[in-house]
């Protein structure tokens, strides 16, 4: 049940950050038009970025661990 609550916290954080970044990248003032294609592609890019950062972070932790730094 704890894990479930944490999963909700994580999903919410992901939704909030992706919304904020894709709103910024896809919408132009005066904000009259939706831009659904852009939002879909932005979300794909956001998820790929999440995966890439995630992998690079774990690599870094493993390196530090192997070198006895942590």
């Amino acid at each position, binding site marked *: 049940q704890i894990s479930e609550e944490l999963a909700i916290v994580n*999903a919410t954080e*992901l*939704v909030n950050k*992706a*919304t904020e970044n*894709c*709103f910024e990248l*896809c*919408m132009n*003032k*005066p*904000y*009259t*038009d*939706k831009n*659904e294609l852009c*939002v*879909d592609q932005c*979300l794909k890019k956001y*998820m790929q970025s999440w995966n890439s950062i995630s992998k690079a972070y774990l690599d870094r932790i493993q390196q530090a661990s192997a070198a006895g730094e942590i």
Partner: protein
Amino acid sequence: KDMSNFIEIENSKQKMQMSIHQFTNTCFKQCITHVGNDGTLSSQEDLCLRNCLNRFLDTNIQIVKGLQNMK
């Protein structure tokens, strides 16, 4: 039971209030670029704010749907 209903309603009201604070902050930064002399919103600024909110909500809904489809 009344008490837990009361807490639930207060809780969802509070979430809406905090969302309104966030939306106002985001869209004020986007739409209000100078203060002017009389402290009233121009109709153009007001339209910008409402469009900003609606496009932000559109983006949010589409992101949620997009993530659900990925699962």
